[in-house]
């Protein structure tokens, strides 16, 4: 691996991120760590979404996987005392089942584009409404608090120290980047791009459309569920509005589109910006103007989608590429 300026900058940045919790920040430390952990987890979820989104499989129902993952792990712990390490595996398996139940017929019957978006939107709503309807053990719209473990924080996956979550979040985020990069270089990418362009044509040249679509959907759903589990364990509280349904599903999509869904760091940039923006607006306007922060957020989203359709990171990357002379294609 040769050292290029971009790689060197990346390495320095990563080192800085890794060392950040060691920097003394007085009273601000807990808050800063909290914001950054949220950025890690939601970026990871955004990356998971973009695995599908970049190939034209625009899901507006990723809240379903998030909700299934988070609720399964929390309920298994609360009612059966099952450690999240096992419960998490069960939760991911469950969300994979949900993904297959939806994705198989979708792919089999050629449901794409608008229709795919609306079917997934319905799936997200079904999960949200089921959580609310089964209020006897899910707590309905009030949500559920994760039972605090008496001891053995590793078994319960509960840590009071935010630094632990910081590094866990960092690991999760890097794992998401790795998956993204791995897929980007694989054969699956070429196949999926062909499918995204024209399914019939792809099938004609021998691409197994259903198989590739199912694989990518399962991968995306499993990672999203993992993100949901991490979020639930960190916040120790789950709520149907924040973890399932149309609201959170759209938020995931927005953050990714804002950053740019065709680039490695796009989801992260978008998520970091939206979270930083809403935190900043919250600090500026406080509780005096409830809704003001979100109003500006919504307005910016519309403006960004109109004027920067490739996303912030995507547009910047394109700009840099245009400035620089075209790279010489590597001879293999």
């Amino acid at each position, binding site marked *: 691996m040769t050292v290029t300026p971009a790689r060197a900058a990346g390495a320095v940045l990563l080192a800085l991120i890794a060392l950040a919790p060691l920097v003394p920040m007085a009273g601000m430390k807990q808050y800063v760590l909290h914001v950054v952990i949220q950025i890690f987890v939601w970026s990871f979820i955004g990356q998971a979404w973009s695995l599908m*989104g970049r190939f*034209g499989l*625009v899901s507006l129902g990723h809240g379903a996987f998030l909700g299934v993952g988070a609720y399964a792990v929390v309920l298994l712990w609360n009612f059966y005392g099952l450690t999240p390490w096992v419960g998490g595996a069960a939760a991911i398996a469950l969300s994979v089942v949900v993904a297959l139940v*939806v994705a198989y*017929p*979708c792919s*089999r*019957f*050629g*449901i794409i*584009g*608008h*229709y795919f*978006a*609306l*079917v997934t*939107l*319905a*799936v997200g*709503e*079904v999960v949200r*409404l*089921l959580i*609310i*309807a089964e209020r006897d053990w899910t707590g309905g719209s009030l949500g559920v608090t994760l039972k605090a473990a008496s001891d053995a924080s590793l078994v319960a996956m509960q840590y009071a120290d935010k630094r632990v979550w910081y590094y866990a979040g960092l690991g999760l985020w890097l794992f998401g980047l790795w998956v993204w990069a791995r897929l980007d270089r694989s054969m699956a990418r070429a196949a999926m791009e062909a499918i995204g362009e024209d399914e019939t044509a792809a099938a004609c040249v021998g691409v197994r459309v259903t198989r590739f679509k199912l694989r990518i959907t399962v991968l995306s759903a499993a990672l999203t569920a993992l993100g949901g589990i991490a979020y639930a364990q960190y916040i120790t509280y789950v709520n149907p509005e924040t973890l399932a349904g*149309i*609201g959170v599903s*759209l938020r995931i*999509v*927005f953050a990714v*589109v804002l950053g740019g869904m065709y680039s490695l760091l796009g989801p992260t940039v978008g998520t970091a910006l939206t979270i930083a923006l809403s935190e900043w607006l919250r600090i500026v306007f406080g509780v005096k*103007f*409830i*809704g*003001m*922060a*979100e*109003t500006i*957020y*919504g*307005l910016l*989203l*519309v403006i*960004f*989608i*109109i004027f920067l*359709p490739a996303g912030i990171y995507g547009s910047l990357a394109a700009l840099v590429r245009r400035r620089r002379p075209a790279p010489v294609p590597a001879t293999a």
Partner: protein
Amino acid sequence: MIDPIFLVEAAVNGIMLGGVLALLALGLNLIFGVLDIVWIAYVDLVMVAMYAVYFLVMVYGWPIWLGGLGGVVVGVALGILVHLLIITPILDSPPVNQLLATGGLLFFLQSIATFLWSTDHKSVRVSLPSIELGGIFVSYPRLIAFVLSILVMVGLYLFLTRTFIGTAIRAVSQDRGAMALMGASPQKIYVVTSAVGGAMAGVAAALLSIQYSVHPYFGAAFGPITFMICVLGGLGNMVGAFIASFVMSEIIAIGGVVWSTEMGYVIAFALFIVMMFARPGGILAKRQ
């Protein structure tokens, strides 16, 4: 066991609800058919128009019918504004971006409504009695809403089939390219379509505001079901949307009585998902 009379009552209420849902679905479907864009924020426009009706009637003391007309005017204005400000610049963008731009509008409308009018439920109080028919209670406002929505739909049908501009709108929804070749201005048709879609939202707002109280998350409550109805009926298919409205509203109404409101919606959405697989083109499409 549930007394059958409750089921009958639920069925009747379902038909009433279906009328208003059909209005929403037809407005959204008209826009989709012509512009090929799903306005995710459509029911949030209805929410804003409902606030307009509320303020005109309850704060400025307009009579209810005039307030309702005011709501329609607000709906038309919103439809045109959305088209000119948001849709026009991104007409040639990928469908995802178009979907998301109106999704951003959804966030904007929800939160600005929270900011301006708080999350309190506001209702237009109309003191009208319920009618009893053989043990079944039907609320008078619902009956009025149902009858009016049917009349408006007939009006829409006549507009689309009997006027020149209506015919042009239907022509665009069939073949966008050919329309420009025939010398009609697509841009003008788009604006008119958005205005008519906005008017539908306004009428629905007026009719909904005498039955439900309005709050910033009203769109989130009625939005998903409206999309489902449009797709179930076949996106762009008016007759299909009309039938699908009643199917869905019956499921919600009867499911609500037998289990719970949420379960009614769950069953309706589940049916939608299953129907998508069985008949991807909508309930009226021929199987390929």
